């Protein structure tokens, strides 16, 4: 065991993992976190806590992760390179480990131009690859990025990374995933999969490179709430690949039934990706629709979650 987290145990025991996601509030409200945690508890093995996603100021990932621990859920703290240099990141990692956080997802981070403080100065001292190396070095070599030894207990994380199989250049994406595994990723959570054939082709190349044996790959999935949301994701979100047939399927569904249809599409994607060699689990991103996770996991046959 690298960190001994529930997620790590589920994956190493060979279970098909299911993780969820919780977006912290844009306030100091704790009630909303308790409410969202309630929607996820028992339905997933770990819950990602986003780190000011889309560069909008939100409650800190570490703070919410600790709240989740208190509520009896296992958090996966997300850490981006946008707002912190290597000094701040390592300091936060020591703190997070001390507070009992065991899963860490390493990201470069959305550019601040997308958020609510577009005039901010960004950091990007490290990129996600270098962040992975640093976290692995802290854990396995007990060394800070500068080379100094960690004197005392080292921060031990089950290390995650993201991958977008749908971004360009497609041919390089499997190699980039291999780089992340080499840099230190123990598990991968992908961009939301809607285009299953393209993901299948990607995974074939990943398996040919043997990357699935170096890290656990969780396919990202998400329910679409409405035709409008489907159209928005298909046309406005960079790096998203929503096939037209899904957009049309949502369009053809009466408005009051669209949410239900969106859940159905999500369940179908889960069932399809589950059959793809090298896929070790799913990461369900039902941001601002956390209450759908119970139904998605039930319909997809992912319940009960294993007790390991």
């Amino acid at each position, binding site marked *: 065991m690298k960190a001994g987290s529930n997620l790590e145990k589920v994956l190493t025991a060979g279970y098909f993992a299911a993780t969820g996601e919780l977006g912290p509030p844009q306030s100091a409200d704790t009630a909303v976190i308790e409410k969202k945690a309630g929607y996820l508890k028992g339905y997933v093995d770990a819950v990602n806590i986003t780190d000011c996603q889309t560069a909008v100021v939100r409650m800190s990932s570490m703070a919410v992760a600790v709240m989740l621990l208190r509520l009896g859920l296992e958090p996966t703290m997300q850490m981006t390179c946008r707002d912190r240099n290597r000094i701040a990141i390592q300091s936060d990692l020591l703190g997070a480990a001390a507070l009992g956080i065991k899963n860490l997802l390493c990201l470069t981070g959305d550019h601040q131009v997308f958020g609510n403080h577009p005039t901010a100065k960004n950091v990007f001292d490290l990129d996600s690859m*270098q962040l992975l190396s640093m976290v692995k070095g802290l854990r396995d070599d007990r060394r800070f990025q500068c080379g100094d030894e960690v004197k005392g207990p080292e921060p031990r994380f089950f290390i995650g990374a993201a991958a977008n199989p749908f971004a360009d250049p497609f041919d390089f994406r499997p190699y*980039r995933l291999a780089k992340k595994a080499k840099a230190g990723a123990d598990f991968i959570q992908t961009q939301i999969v809607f285009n299953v054939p393209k993901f299948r082709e990607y995974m074939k190349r990943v398996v040919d490179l043997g990357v699935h044996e170096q890290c656990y790959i969780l396919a990202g999935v998400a329910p679409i709430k409405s035709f409008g949301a489907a159209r928005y994701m298909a046309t406005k979100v960079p790096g998203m690949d929503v096939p037209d047939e899904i957009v049309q399927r949502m369009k053809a569904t009466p408005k009051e039934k669209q949410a239900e249809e969106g859940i159905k599409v999500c369940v179908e994607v889960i069932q399809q990706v589950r059959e793809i060699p090298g896929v070790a689990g799913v990461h369900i991103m039902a941001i601002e629709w956390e209450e759908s996770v119970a139904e998605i996991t039930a319909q997809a046959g992912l319940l009960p979650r294993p007790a390991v």
Partner: protein
Amino acid sequence: MIIAEQKPLDEIKSMIADYQKVLILGCGTCVTICFAGGEKEVGALASALRMATRLDGQNKEFIEATVQRQCEYEFNEEVADLIEEADVVLSLACGIGVQTMNEQFPNKLTLPGLNTAFLGQPVEQGVWDERCQACGDCVLYLTGGICPIARCSKSLLNGPCGGSQNGKCEVNPEIDCAWQLIYDRLQALDRLDLMMEVKPAKDWSTSRDGGPRKIVREDLRLTFVEEKQS
């Protein structure tokens, strides 16, 4: 070269509001080439300011001059008389020129008429793109001659990120994805092996992060020669 662009006229007007006699001083090097602060732009700005201040009922005087390189004392010395005679200098040089003037003529305030934008290249008539961030530790040998520090929105050394689509950057469809360019170039050179290695964390101490930078070449210093001779 250094790419700059003129500040908005209203901002310039408010900067010079308290001065009567204004020397507009252009620079004959980078900012001439990028049509921001050469002799021609000095003339055009002087005309625009004469007209604008006259309409505002002011009676300001504008003197026009352009030196070859405003970032070097010897060229500015040539217009010392004009500087002396003006109440203020409005420089159309880059930020380096403006600071050189303020250092060299401490009794005279020199104002910036331009915004210094970046180190770049004219890619077509009227279009300039950033090319170098002067990080002080060139990585172009690893990236097919395309700079990820200056040209990737997140300065990634292990790109492209998940926001690269159709050759464009997620930050803005006007920006080419630097890592797509690097990938294409390395593929053409049959050097994709350079993209397979994890590039370690960069040493930013040679960049602005290490504080204001300075280069001292003892072999070129006059004091060095003097010491040797003595």
